[in-house]
């Protein structure tokens, strides 16, 4: 027997890494399962793409042949380095999937362009969707990190300036203002992401309401859970709220969900599917407070007391808010860049200012903000192409959303259409003990798959959108 070493594979869309040595326990693949032996219908646990979409993980992704020598002004200057960038630099703001994807896509085309990535956070590379499934998978926050900003920057041959917020953009001088000093750019990419909406909650513990949207806030959450069984109040029964609720239940916590709507995922799912999800959560002991909002939260003994708008109160240990994402636009708006709901960009991801691009959760293309992973890599490619003078525009598509709730796995395509559709608009392809498959009969393609049918999502999506 020959001992060939195990290989690692990376999912093109979301960056999930399949390590043959470790296998994929959730997908039923024991450690040591080689790529060749993976079933054809295997699905990426993060984004739902297929085995086909895995590519060998390069030892060092997209390394610059020899990292470009830092131009004069970017080297730590003689006064302790408060000057960064240069009139040649591509400066990327944000170290989420969007920021790193642009760095990779541009570096692949141009091994020598000086690139500086600036970010307010610590810049670690991680798959954000895992934040709502990590508890059930027994993963600590540190396990989610694939590489530190320094590691990834070195691999790509770029510079990274972490824990540095861009306070202001000065397009006239092509300069970014930060507390560490000014940054000069030739071209700028805004990959600022989105923040969780802050709800108006009164009470002396209002400041303790947590919003999980990045590694740091997630660490905070895990620290407060503290290995104990807790009662958690979740504000918002949207995608992130439902996923977190299921994950918290799986880890043995008790959960109450507060939402002004009458059913979960009201903006994404047809009513009867939402009711089914609700029933599955009921079985796990989730307590629903629907048609309600949280009015106040106060300290009470060693815990908190939540008061709803109708005056009812209950005791809870932790309040988590997941009430919707708002694209971060302020730095752009203040610089005179056109902003709608997000930072407005065309199909080349160009904003209203020359040489300034936007992508990811902060961007709005043709009136739509995408808050999903799938479009981001395609947007990053479009930016790299445009910078190289190629014409490969981004094609907006209705999103395929996988609701990562093990209680009832769901894939939904074109949720906006799905949520508002009349029951008579659906063709029920299958509905049995394993789940359901509903296809919309209107002109705009939409479908909903539940249970074991949820796995068909990618295939069906491809049949519609190629």
């Amino acid at each position, binding site marked *: 027997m020959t001992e060939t070493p195990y290989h690692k594979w990376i999912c093109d869309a979301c960056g999930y890494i399949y390590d043959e040595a470790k296998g994929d326990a959730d997908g039923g693949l024991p450690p040591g399962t080689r790529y060749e032996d993976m079933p054809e219908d295997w699905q990426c646990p993060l984004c739902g793409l297929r085995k086909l979409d895995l590519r060998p993980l390069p030892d060092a992704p997209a390394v610059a042949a020899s990292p470009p020598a830092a131009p004069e002004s970017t080297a730590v200057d003689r*006064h*302790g380095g408060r000057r960064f960038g240069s009139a040649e630099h591509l400066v990327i703001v944000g170290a989420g999937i969007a920021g790193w994807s642009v760095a990779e896509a541009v570096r692949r085309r141009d091994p020598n362009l000086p690139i500086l990535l600036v970010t307010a956070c*610590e810049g670690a590379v991680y798959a954000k969707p895992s934040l709502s499934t990590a508890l059930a998978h027994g993963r600590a926050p540190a396990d989610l990190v694939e590489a530190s900003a320094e590691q990834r920057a070195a691999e790509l041959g770029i510079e990274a300036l972490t824990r540095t917020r861009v*306070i202001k953009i000065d397009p006239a001088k092509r300069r970014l*203002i930060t507390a*560490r*000093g*000014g940054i000069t750019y030739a071209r700028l990419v805004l990959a600022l992401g989105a923040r969780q909406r802050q709800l108006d909650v009164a009470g002396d513990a209002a400041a303790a309401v947590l919003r999980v949207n990045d590694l740091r806030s997630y660490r905070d959450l895990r620290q407060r859970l503290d290995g104990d069984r807790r009662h958690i109040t979740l504000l918002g029964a949207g995608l992130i709220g439902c996923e977190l609720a299921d994950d918290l239940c799986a880890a043995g916590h008790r959960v109450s969900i507060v939402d002004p709507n009458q059913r979960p995922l009201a903006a994404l799912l047809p009513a009867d599917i939402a009711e089914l999800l609700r029933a599955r959560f009921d079985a796990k002991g989730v307590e629903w407070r629907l048609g309600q909002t949280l009015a106040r939260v106060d300290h009470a003994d060693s815990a908190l007391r939540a008061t709803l708008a109708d005056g009812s109160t209950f005791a809870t240990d932790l309040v988590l808010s997941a009430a919707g994402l708002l694209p971060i636009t302020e730095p752009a708006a203040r610089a005179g860049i056109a902003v709608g709901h997000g930072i407005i960009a065309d199909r080349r991801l160009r904003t209203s200012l020359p040489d300034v691009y936007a992508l990811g959760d902060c961007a709005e293309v043709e009136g739509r903000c995408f808050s999903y992973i799938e479009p981001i890599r395609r947007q990053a490619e479009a930016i790299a192409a445009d910078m190289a003078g190629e014409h490969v525009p981004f094609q907006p598509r209705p999103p395929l959303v996988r609701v990562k709730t093990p209680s009832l796995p769901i894939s939904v395509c074109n949720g906006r259409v799905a949520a508002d559709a009349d029951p008579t608009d659906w063709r029920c392809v299958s509905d049995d003990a394993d789940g359901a498959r509903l296809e919309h009969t209107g002109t705009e393609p939409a479908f909903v798959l539940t249970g074991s049918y949820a796995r068909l999502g990618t295939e069906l999506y491809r049949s519609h959108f190629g």
Partner: protein
Amino acid sequence: MSAAIQIPKSTAASHAFAAAQSADELVAATRAIVEHELAPQTARIDTEGLYPKAVMHSLGAAGAFRAHLPDARADGCHDFGAAIRAMAAVSQECLSTGFATWCQDTCAWYLQVGEAQARERWLEPLASGRVLGGTGMSNTMKAFSGIEDLRLSGERVDGGYLVNGSLPWVSNLGADHVFGSLFTLSGDTNRTVMALVDCSAPGFTLRQSAHFVALEGTRTFACLFDNVFIPDANVIDHDGAAFLQRARAGLVLLQFGMGAGNIQGCIDVCRSVEPLLGHVNQFLDDRPDELQQELDDIVDAVLTLAETPYETSKDFFREILQLRLAAGELALRASQSAMLHTGAKGYLSSAPAQRKLRESYFVAIVTPATKHLRKELARMEAEGASA
């Protein structure tokens, strides 16, 4: 208490400025006072330790001390940017007066973010400059950073507190002045109280200390407390720790008025000799254009942060401290450059360059000083890395 200082009656003139005034109008009014009233005295303030009392009252009447105080403005808004820019206009000419302005602004800010009773009594007199005041908080800031122990302690008595202890240097003081400071409660060292100290109170002594190389015109004294009674009416906040949390961002933000003014003054000095000496000065480091860009970057950042002085997050305060450190370091480089650009002319004892050199060290050593900032930032970075 009968010894309490008399608050001068307000004049019609100072009330007129309570109406909302634009930041540009305020800066223009400040510049006029600087040019006509302050500039003729700058050299004497520096060398003889003359305290610019009349200038301070003029600045107050012009509205220079109220821009950042919502409860002292007709529109109820705050404009820290305007307060910082006005202080910078003063500091560009004379840092003694610039620092006195900071003391006044900051003392009033304490009342703004403190409890209602003291605010109602003291905010308007301080905002208008009719009562002059200071801040004895260096010790407090350092104590909360674990650098030294609190020097004042108070004991609860009927109607107020009896305070004992001493503070080394507090500026902008006089027999008829007040200042904000913080003391621990004896018997419960975890609790602190923030109060306004009346310099005329029995048991309180101002002691003239040795002389400084600059900032002599700031009326800086050692403050000795011997059973000084502080009535409840003058308690700014009964919870000192929570108070400091609210006050600290504004306190440090205001200091940029001193730094930005001093640095701009140095750049101006460099520029003033350019027509004559540009042909050799071009061989120097830290040319005025380079310094100007770094200053503009700092000011741009500060004026943006100054829009949200009530923000209490750690990240926000870290940014303020990073910029504060940068301002101190840039002040030292700018004043050094002013010396080198002006040469022997700047070395004359009457020259602005050498005064600005001495003044610039104050920007770097006043609390939070360069070393304290580096210590605090190192701690914050380590905390962020392990978080």
